[in-house]
């Protein structure tokens, strides 16, 4: 070996001696393997869920076939029990035994990578991973995304709400019914959301706007002005092709929900004084009976968790929960709340099952869902009210910083508060807030200050979490709010103070910060 080679050899080894020790590598590897395993478990869970959905659909079909030809059809006559845990909803059905049905070849090409959402007589309805195609029976429509979807109990029809791509999660769209046998589609009209009656007889469209056919909810600012719009329900009789319209009142409507027996229809109205739930009787004919909210069922605004429907799985395999305005990441294994995702493209959403709508469970069991842990608690239908005493002092928080969805909402004990858009479009917000106390004068919580550094892009960046203690003080009256609102937020970083500049704050200084609420509520 020449002197020069010996020099290189010696230098290379000196360089290597300066390599990092890798003392924490085992923790890094451990963490990554854990995440891989989560993906694996959720995949299994999703497949099991889809299988359960298919079983329920088939059982429903059989029940329909065995039902009398006239009179009301009890679709969910099959005795079904449901149990829930923090990470799973498991259903066992003791209905009519399955029987072999004649097999018919699918009439449409089946896209690869799709998820089965319904199947009957060999016909298969599929969605692709971006929710755009349901076999060829539901052709993709340009610049729109399937935001909500339901399959009739006979699995012959699919009701689809398509929204523009840039507001796929909430806002106005067009509802149509697709016949899976013929591929024909029938437009029902615009809506912010819809609900399919449990027997598949009716579809209720919820519209917020100037009239039942002029939907504006979600397409303009969902702030004070939009909250003054009128809202309507239009119930379409799918068999007869008729519809009836009911004026709900002032406010943005959402959370459309049929009762399990299909005789009542619940919806929330978010007006300038907050969100309130209303219940309506839905008869088969005649006029709708408005707002029968009473002792039979009361859905308080603070029972908002009931409106959550865990139904989405992100590509990193977190279970997502949405109430129409938020998409929240929940670790399906631990229930840990990873905050609200607003920067992810909506087209990343995969997998859904309306069967996991905990409100619409076709059973005699309902659940309350804890927002922070996703733990579920069964509630007997004999319970006359889900009564929660409202907190009298609230905080006006920004619920989303999306340019199309930004909105303020007075809340008590919010688990998430959006903070600001900072330099280079970094997003910051507070997540997993756990309130140690909340009284009319002050409130304190622990949680995380989360940063999406938007590097290399907001969609692919890894969120950074910094433990914080948050204190709210200075309750004051607020124009437009019947309740006092906290106006000062003090933030203490418990460990590391993030070094990230934002528009209105430089967080490189002391460990404590004081901010005036509410925060900026729109990102460019």
């Amino acid at each position: 070996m020449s002197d020069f080679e010996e020099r290189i050899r010696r230098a290379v080894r000196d360089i290597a001696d300066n390599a990092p020790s890798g003392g924490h590598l085992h923790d890094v590897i451990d963490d990554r393997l854990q995440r891989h395993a989560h993906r694996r478990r959720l995949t299994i869970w999703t497949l099991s869920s889809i299988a359960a959905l298919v079983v329920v659909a088939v059982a429903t079909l059989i029940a329909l076939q065995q039902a009398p030809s006239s009179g009301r059809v009890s679709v969910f006559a099959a005795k079904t029990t449901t149990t829930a845990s923090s990470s799973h909803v498991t259903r066992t059905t003791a209905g009519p035994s399955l029987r072999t049905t004649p097999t018919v070849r699918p009439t449409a090409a089946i896209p690869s990578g799709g998820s089965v959402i319904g199947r009957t007589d060999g016909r298969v309805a599929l969605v692709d991973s971006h929710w755009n195609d349901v076999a060829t029976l539901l052709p993709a429509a340009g610049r729109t995304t399937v935001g909500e979807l339901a399959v009739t109990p006979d699995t012959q029809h699919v009701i689809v709400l398509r929204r523009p791509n840039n507001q796929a999660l909430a806002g106005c769209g067009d509802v149509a019914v697709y016949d899976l046998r013929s591929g024909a589609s029938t437009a029902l009209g615009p809506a912010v959301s819809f609900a399919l009656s449990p027997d598949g007889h009716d579809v209720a469209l919820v519209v917020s706007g100037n009239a039942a056919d002029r939907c504006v909810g979600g397409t303009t600012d969902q702030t004070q002005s939009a909250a003054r719009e009128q809202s309507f329900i239009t119930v379409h009789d799918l068999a007869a092709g008729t519809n009836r319209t009911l004026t709900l009142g002032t406010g943005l409507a959402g959370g459309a929900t049929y009762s399990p027996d299909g005789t009542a229809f619940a919806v929330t109205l978010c007006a300038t004084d907050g969100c309130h739930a209303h219940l309506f009787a839905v008869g088969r004919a005649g006029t709708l009976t408005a707002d029968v909210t009473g002792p039979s069922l009361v859905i308080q605004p603070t029972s908002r968790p009931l409106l959550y429907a865990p139904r989405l799985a992100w590509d990193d395999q977190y279970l997502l929960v949405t109430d129409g305005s938020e998409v929240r990441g929940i670790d399906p294994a631990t229930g840990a709340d990873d905050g609200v995702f607003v920067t992810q493209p909506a087209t990343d959403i995969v997998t859904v099952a309306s069967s996991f709508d905990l409100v619409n469970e076709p059973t005699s069991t309902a659940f309350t869902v804890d927002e922070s842990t996703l733990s579920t608690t069964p509630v007997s239908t004999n319970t006359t009210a889900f009564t929660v005493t409202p907190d009298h002092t609230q905080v006006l928080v920004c619920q989303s910083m999306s340019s199309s969805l930004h909105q303020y909402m007075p809340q008590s004990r919010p688990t998430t508060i959006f903070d600001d858009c900072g330099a280079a479009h970094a997003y910051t917000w507070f997540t997993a807030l756990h309130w140690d106390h909340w009284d009319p004068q002050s409130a304190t919580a622990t949680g995380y200050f989360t940063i999406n550094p938007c590097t290399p892009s907001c969609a692919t960046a890894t969120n950074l979490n910094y433990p914080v203690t948050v204190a709210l003080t200075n309750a004051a009256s607020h124009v437009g709010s019947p309740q006092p609102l906290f106006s000062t937020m003090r933030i203490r970083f418990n460990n590391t103070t993030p070094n990230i500049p934002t528009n209105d704050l430089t967080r490189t200084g002391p460990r404590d910060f004081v901010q005036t609420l509410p925060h900026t509520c729109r990102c460019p």
Partner: protein
Amino acid sequence: MDVGTGMLESMEARAGMRVAGPSEVVGFGEVFRSEHARALRLAYVLTADSVLAEEVVADVFVAMYPHWKRGGVDDAAAYVRRAVVNRVNSAFRRLAVRRNTELWTQRASADGADVGIDDRDVVHRALLALPVGQRVAVALRYLDDLSEADTAEALGISVGTVKSQVARGLMRLRELLEPDEEGDAS
């Protein structure tokens, strides 16, 4: 503390995977303990970036684990070595990493006299200026004294290619490190 054993136990229990038997636990723990330092040294020589080197090695072991469980890893040292090289190559395909390295080497050149910089740094910068293939070949040959045959196996190339890559790498290094002597020679 037995880092490797603890790590694997943690992996198995928390990841919900099949619980490995004692021999498996010790086995992968041993693999980790025996190979991770060597892998880090190689990754650091090739990248000059501590964070990236650790990232690469973590990726290697995470990807290796399922293969190892299925019995698909006969020679752990060779597997890890090749995986590190492949992942470094992948990383260098990304513009940001390449640019970072270029800036690093440009800065070295801009420093000019390299005052206060020892031979290790000078060689490292010169090494980073080599094309990736030559850099990897030189590093493997001189870091662990791999034979040309072993280097060829680690890189999945022929022995002849290894010889030419090393020779060209050394020639280029000599040009960078001993420019006056090159000039004198010519």
